[in-house]
Every structure is written in structure tokens, then in C-alpha cells.
């Protein structure tokens, strides 16, 4: 796969139309996703550094686990 750059940040983005409030993202990535009173995700708006591997892994699990495929990881590399 080659060496992945670990500089830069990522955002976890949700498509609010696809999201149906299953709540799997909150279980899989609790450090990035909180829940509102109706069961919908409140996602951390601040970017997370890519060097935070635990958070990145949680985010990946959340993206994979979402039943509606509503999540995406948006990488912003340092330029």
C-alpha cells in the first residue's frame, strides 16, 4: 500500500438525508459522534488530526457500520 501520510486532518461527514438515526456511529466512534435527543448524530465539527489513529479507526468502523452508508471520511492533507 505504501507509506500513508499521517499529516493533515480528517472530518467525519454525515449525509443528513440518508441518515435514519440508527445510532451505530455513536456506538462505534463515541469520541467523534454524540447523540441528540431524537437519536441523530451530532458529529464533532472540529477536524481530527490523522495522527490520532484510534479516532481514525473508530471513524472507519463507523463508516463501515452505518446501515444507510451515510458517513464519509473527508481527509484534508496539509498543503
Amino acid at each position, binding site marked *: 500500500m505504501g507509506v500513508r501520510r499521517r499529516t493533515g486532518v480528517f472530518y467525519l461527514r454525515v449525509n443528513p438525508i*440518508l441518515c435514519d438515526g440508527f445510532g451505530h456511529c455513536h456506538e462505534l466512534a463515541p469520541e467523534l459522534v454524540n447523540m441528540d435527543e431524537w*437519536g*441523530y448524530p451530532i458529529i464533532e465539527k472540529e477536524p481530527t488530526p490523522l495522527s490520532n489513529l484510534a479516532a481514525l479507526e473508530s471513524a472507519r468502523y463507523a463508516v463501515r457500520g452505518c446501515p444507510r452508508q451515510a458517513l464519509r471520511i473527508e481527509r484534508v492533507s496539509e498543503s
Partner: protein
Amino acid sequence: MQAQALPRLLFGNPGTPLTLGQHEATFASSYRAASLLDELEASGLTGRGGAAFPTARKARLLRDQRGHNKVVVVNAMEGEPVSYKDSTLLGTNPHLVLDGAAILASIIGAKDVIICVSRDNPTAVGHVQRALDERQRVGARGPDFKLETAPWRYVAGEESALVHWLDDNESLPQYRPQRPSILKIRHHAVLLDNVETCANVGLIGRFGAAWFRTLGTAVSSGSLLVTVTGALERAKVLEILPGMTLRAILNVADADADPRALLLGGYGGSWLDAVHLDTPYDNESLTPLGASVGAGIIVVLGREGCGVVETQRVVKWMANESARQCGPCAFGLPALSDDLVELSTGSRASASAFTRLEHRCGVIDGRGACHHPDGVVRLVRSALRVFEQDFRSHARGAPCDGSRSQKYFVNVPKLEREHELIWE
């Protein structure tokens, strides 16, 4: 027309639109612009649909898009129930709008123009249809015009919802994470502009940017159409200049000279306390006060009215107008509405409702695909600011007298069906 000041857009008799011949005679001009796009840029025209985005920048972006079959869409849906400027404009000068749309089409290289009018406004539909028929009879050159009538809902005038309706027959706002995002019908790029913006483009095309800039401020050039409703005898659509104070506008409109507050920008706008009546009506002056021009809407709240009740009525209707696609909007807006109902009646639950209100605003803001919930949150937050004393007394269980009188200043449409949503 060279020394003409106002009116520019509303030149004529609303209700009896100028025929093509009258239009050509009135707006005859020998001015020929070298580059229409540069002319547009020099004029500093900003969008009149609410967002005030520079029209030339949008046109340039669309011109630089690849693709043969670009489309220009003229948005005459006028989703805001307290706005009548677009239908008035279509009833006064539809050919000016068509001119502007043709100019935009030539700038971006589009062959088709679609004019979208609300199906529930048959007068305006008739005006546009007649104007199009006139053009066809005369055999006017230019792009192919098409009239489409979408069903009227609040979000049906939102640009992605309108384009989606043209594409897929459903007025559902779309999720557009990419900025800048290009609207598309199938895969054809779309330039969407408000009716008033197109009319201004038509004027710029005929008389040039320098003439256009003779009126208005340095930053907000040109004239503005404003709908004034509320504490006045008859709703009025005025063509005013940005920079005119709110007090002067109310004076011209024959509205209550001593209101309690003004609702600026529509149902998704903000309240403004009447102490600021001497503020100039343009975005530079209003933004520091937490308000904006929006789609040129002013609702005047009289002293006998209650801001809490008016806000509650608006939010209840707006909650029903949600497309129910996104959870925070589908569930959050009815929750805000319920809290406001508790507050306006001054029931026992109103104290907790008051504390919940600001918290819920923070939770709902910015979490929808479109800006419908953001607008409602903006309205509620501005109400909490402007009517703070009233809210506190309501929360204590002592609603003001204004809340008990059945006299309402904000014209809110009747809720058709509370819990059902039928989209076409």
C-alpha cells in the same frame, strides 16, 4: 429612460403587464455592451432571492462549466408566504425578466430557459404564459423558453429542491456538501436566479452597468423590491433604494410608525427591535444587528401584538413545511414548536420550555441538508433576543395582553394537514 430614477423594475401598472411592444418602446436603448459578463460584474448586482450572492460570479462559474446543454432556471416560486414581490414583478414587467434570462443564457451558453412559477398562483402563471406566447408569435430570437409550474411549498423555492423537482418531480432539497456546488438537471449544469435578479440583468443589458450603479449604495447597487406586510392597511410591494432607513420605508408604505418590532427577511429571517428603525436598509448595516435584507421582506409587528405568539405561529407552520428528510429538522422543529406553544399560552410547562428552547436551537442548527432548520433557529434566537422580557414573563406563567388578543400581524397560511406530507 436615461435620467429615470425610480421606478425601474416596477415600471408600469401591476396587474396589467406591459405587452411586448410597450416593453420594447419603454425600455428602448441603443447601448450595446462589449461583454455582457463584464457588464454584469461591473454592476455589482447581487442575487435577490435571499442569499445576495454576486450574480456575475455565479454566471462566470456556470460559463466555465463543461457541457453543451446548460439550462437557465428562473426561480419565481416565492416560497415565503409573506413575499409578493416576485408575483408583482411578473404582473408588471414579465418581458424584462425574460430579457434578463435570455442574457444569462447567452453568457453561459445555454439554449434553454425554464421559468418556474408556483402552480398555486394562477395569475402569475397566466402573465408569464401570455408573455411567452407574445414572444413566440413575434418569433423573437433567443433561447427556448419553457414555463413549468411546481406545487407551492416553502422549500419548493429552495434552489436544489426546485432543480430536483424539474429533474425528478419531487420538491425535495438535496444534500450538497461540495462548495461550490453546481446544480444539475440530469447532468446538465443549471444557472438558477431569482426573478428579480433576472429583471435587473435585463436592465443592465439594456442600459449598462454605469447606469445601473447610479442608484443604490457602493456595495448594494441598484434598486430593491420590498414587500411590507403586517401593521398596515394593505400589503405593499415597494421598489426602494438600499440605504433608505427602515423608518422611511414604513412611512412610504403607510405602515404603523411606532411598531414593536420588525420581522426582516421572511420566516427564516430575524426580528429587529423598533429602536433600530433608523438603520439603513442594506446588508452592511443590518448584519451587525443580526438581521438581513433577505428576499426583501418586512413584516411590521404592532404594539398590540405579542412577539412570542407570532414566533410560535410561524415556527409551527415552518415545522410542518419541513421535508422530513433529516432527523434534526423533522423532529427538532416540531419540538421547538411545542415549546413555543407552551410558552405562548403561559402554561405550567413554560418555564422548562424556555430553558429547553435555547438548548434545542443549538442542537438543531446546521444539521440539516438544507438551511430550513437554520432559518427557524435564526428566527427563534432573534425572538429570544428582541422579546426577551416578554419571553421571561411568559415563562413565569404571566403571558402579556397581546398574546390573548386574536389580532395577528404575521400572515401565516393555514396548516393544511398536520402530520402528513404529500410531495409531488
